[in-house]
């Protein structure tokens, strides 16, 4: 597996982990996502050793929860983000993370293949749209998603009034939605 593996390819890798407990497939997934998860955790304020520990726990959780991954609802990247985020709250912020009840896809109820393909393609387009946002807006979204930055903390960092921050984030998300149409 190389860096430009598409989201749909990662879905196939997840199936091998789910159905065959394939450690080679997991190793492929790990080589791509582990450095990103660790970078995400360090950007969020964790030191190197805590980020490494937390990343390993997150990647182990990917294996343990593989049956709950639904490729008609999330890309593999998005799903791993949610696991890494929850680990960050758990390990680094030392808080419980309330999560909605699971809507798993089981062996007897595979999601529709068309839905899977559509969702994976949309995720790639969203990533492209995010990449083409003006620098300021992209930075704000990144700040919101890395680390424990509340809207008011973002305001304090950038010196912008809170109302402006909120409308900028909303504007950025609106643009994302339009870019995906």
């Amino acid at each position, binding site marked *: 597996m190389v860096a430009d593996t598409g989201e749909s390819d990662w879905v196939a890798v997840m199936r091998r982990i789910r159905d065959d407990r394939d450690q080679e497939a997991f190793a492929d997934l*790990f080589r791509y996502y*582990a*450095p*990103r998860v*660790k*970078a*995400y955790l*360090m*950007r969020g304020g964790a030191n190197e050793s805590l*980020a*490494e520990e937390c*990343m*390993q*726990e997150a990647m*182990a*959780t990917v*294996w*343990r*929860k593989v*049956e709950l991954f639904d490729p008609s609802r*999330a*890309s593999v*990247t*998005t*799903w*791993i*983000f*949610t696991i*890494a*985020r*929850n680990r960050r709250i758990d390990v680094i*912020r*030392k*808080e*419980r*993370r*309330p*999560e*909605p*009840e*699971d*809507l*798993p896809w089981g062996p007897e109820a595979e999601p529709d293949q068309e839905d899977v393909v559509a969702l994976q393609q949309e*995720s790639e387009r*969203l*990533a492209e749209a*995010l*990449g083409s946002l003006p620098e300021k807006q992209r930075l704000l*979204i*990144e700040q*919101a*998603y*890395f680390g*424990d*930055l*509340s*809207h008011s903390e973002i305001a304090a960092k950038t010196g912008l009034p809170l109302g402006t921050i*909120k409308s900028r984030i909303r504007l950025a*998300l609106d643009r*994302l939605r339009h870019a995906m149409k």
Partner: protein
Amino acid sequence: MSKINHHLTDEMLLSYSAGSLAEAFSLVVATHVSMCDECRARLDAFDAVGGSVLNDCGEAVVGADSLDATLARITAGEDRLPARKTKADAVFPAPLAEYVDGDLDAVKWTRVGGGVRQAILPTSKGATVRLLHIPAGTAVPDHGHNGAEMTLVLKGAFRDEFDRFGPGDVEVANEDLHHTPVAEEGEDCICLAATDAPLRFNAILPRIAQRFVRI
């Protein structure tokens, strides 16, 4: 489940997706999303933004033995984790049941006056979340607080001068809202309410305008 008319705000969903929302509010979000397919879909969209951010955040150097160490963790722990599902006929969706350690009958209520009972759930500091049991036809007790408030109806319904909130509906109150919610006749109302400042019930005072700040 009746139709849900009052949903989470984009700000709430973004903060929850980013992981920056206080635990008390996160519990209300997770519980509402468990009841509301529309907000689940919206949350999925915010999570997808998070996925893109993760993909673009660069790569940290991982340890040489990192993969082996992770495989060892997998071997040492549980192999597969089961889905967390809400029990059939339960009033509390799965995330709330985990905090209560059971359903409605497991709640340890405390009286707060006017027939109303509450149970504060254990969360981290900074915000508080409580269950409220309001007898049918009773006004929600007047209370003052200085922060935001988010109220999710689990059972029954309440009305104020402006609207009706039934099961699954969530009210995100802002500073402009001064209202007197009353539980509907016929059924007691069970709510889950999060506040980000200590909440003071004013059992003696007839009515105090509530002050809210939108998150």
